[in-house]
């Protein structure tokens, strides 16, 4: 074991953990204030439900020996996950680092269905999704499964995390249907500073996500780190300029979105491409996501917080460009080539199919047991009051204390 590697993975795990509360703020700022807490809770509770599911079962399905598609049960209940070395760090630390990925991936999906999905089926969905869809996907790419052997390049989760969550988001948004006010009323972000805070903390945490994926304190980590710094910078510049060109005004919501898109795009490439390519990837990725967002807002497809445009599409562009810019000189196992782009494309298509089909089946199943959508009344009243019995910002006026039982 290497002490410096342990430190870096401790830090990286903490950073990735922080991404989930960060996402809670990023998302919550974009919804209406009557749904702010519900949106936050969708991320927050992933910390509990996806996290515990991962520790008890998901980790084993992802990383214990199995077949090309899914791992076994050797590590179920954290069996055999101990202080012995896995690579250069304790096995438990590797498990914990991976847990933070599982949590954020599940939370990402919520952006597609906020402001209308009931909370209980949501919890059920992300818990099972983590085990059924996410863990096998991890196994296939990083756990010795078939995509690993197939030659897919995915440094830190462009496929596993972002395209995977993006595909689930698309089917979830489609299966649940649009919010009742979608396309009829203006639904504005109620608290843009929240979204900016989320973007800032996401960037900070993403260093752990990408550079931590080196699993060691070495050149690869440094490269992944630097690329994670450079790509969003370029996205931010291009996005801002595109907005100015289109509407004469750069927006703060746009800037926050650009940062996330840049981060997503560099994720599969982070440790494989030279820094100058990171700038290029960031710059290029701005365009498809920007226009997808604009198009989506005018369509009747209500992927409410644009998980598909930001994560699905951003991840796809990043994964394809990884096939272009990968460089052996900078640590990639192969150099970029048309062939590699083909491999990337097939992997993307497979991931979309895998996640789309299974997520849809899962939603349909849960929908059989309990309604997925809130009633029209609850949706109009707001999910905070209807699902959680509380409000994000209260003055307490007109609230009357109810004393249950006697006072001691």
């Amino acid at each position: 074991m290497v002490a410096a590697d342990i430190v870096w993975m401790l830090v990286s795990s903490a950073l990735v953990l922080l991404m989930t509360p960060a996402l809670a703020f990023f998302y919550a700022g974009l919804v209406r204030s009557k749904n702010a807490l519900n949106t936050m809770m969708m991320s927050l509770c992933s910390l509990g439900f996806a996290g515990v599911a991962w520790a008890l079962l998901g980790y084993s399905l992802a990383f214990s020996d199995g077949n090309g598609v899914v791992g076994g049960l050797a590590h179920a209940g954290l069996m055999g996950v101990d202080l012995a070395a896995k690579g250069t760090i304790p096995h438990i630390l590797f498990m914990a680092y991976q847990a933070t990925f599982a949590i954020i991936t599940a939370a990402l999906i919520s952006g597609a269905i906020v402001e209308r999905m009931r909370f209980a089926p949501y919890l059920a969905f992300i818990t099972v999704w983590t085990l059924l869809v996410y863990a096998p996907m991890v196994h296939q790419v990083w756990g010795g499964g078939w995509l690993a052997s197939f030659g897919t390049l995915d440094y830190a989760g462009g496929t596993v995390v972002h395209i995977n969550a993006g595909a689930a988001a698309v089917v979830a948004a489609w299966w649940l249907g649009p919010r009742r006010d979608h396309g009829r009323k203006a639904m504005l972000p109620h608290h843009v500073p929240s979204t900016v805070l989320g973007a800032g903390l996401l960037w900070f945490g993403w260093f752990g996500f990408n550079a931590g994926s080196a699993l060691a304190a070495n050149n690869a980590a440094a490269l992944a780190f630097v690329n994670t710094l450079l790509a969003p910078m370029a996205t931010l510049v291009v996005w801002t300029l595109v907005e100015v060109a289109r509407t004469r005004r750069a927006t703060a919501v746009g800037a926050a979105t650009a940062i996330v898109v840049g981060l997503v795009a560099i994720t599969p490439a982070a440790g494989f491409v030279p820094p100058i390519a990171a700038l290029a990837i960031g710059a290029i990725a701005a365009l498809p996501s920007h226009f997808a967002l604009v198009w989506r807002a005018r369509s009747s497809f209500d992927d409410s917080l644009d998980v598909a445009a930001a994560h699905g599409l951003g991840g796809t562009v990043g994964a394809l460009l990884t096939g272009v810019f990968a460089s052996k000189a900078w640590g990639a196992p192969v150099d970029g080539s048309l062939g590699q782009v083909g491999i990337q494309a097939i992997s993307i298509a497979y991931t979309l199919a895998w996640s789309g089909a299974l997520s849809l089946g899962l939603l349909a199943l849960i929908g059989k047991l309990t309604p997925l959508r809130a009633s029209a009344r609850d949706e109009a009243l707001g999910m905070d009051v209807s699902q959680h019995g509380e409000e994000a910002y209260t003055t307490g006026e007109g609230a009357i204390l109810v004393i249950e039982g006697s006072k001691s």
Partner: protein
Amino acid sequence: MKMIVAIVRPERLGDVLEALYRAEVRGLTVSRVQGHGGELERVETYRGTTVKVGLEEKMRIEIGVSDSFVEATIKAIVEGGCTGEVGDGKVFVLPVERVVRIRTGETDTAAVTPIRPE
């Protein structure tokens, strides 16, 4: 001149404004209020504390109109604001003695006819 004060549901505000627009009522003032009427009370919980929230979010619209517009205005508000469920709100009509347009000092009817800037 009358002052029409209407309390409506926030989610119907857009419809009310549209109906008013179609009725050619231009000037108006809106504010966020909280109302208590026949609506069901809401229970919320914060840590151990349970509270009953007896006030619902509403929007208050205030419109100064010349007498001939009163009927049309009320009609538009009722049209836009009605859902048929308890809590739709009320319209009050109050007499007004004088209106002054601050920009010009004009009074009464002249004061409430908005002049569109070109």
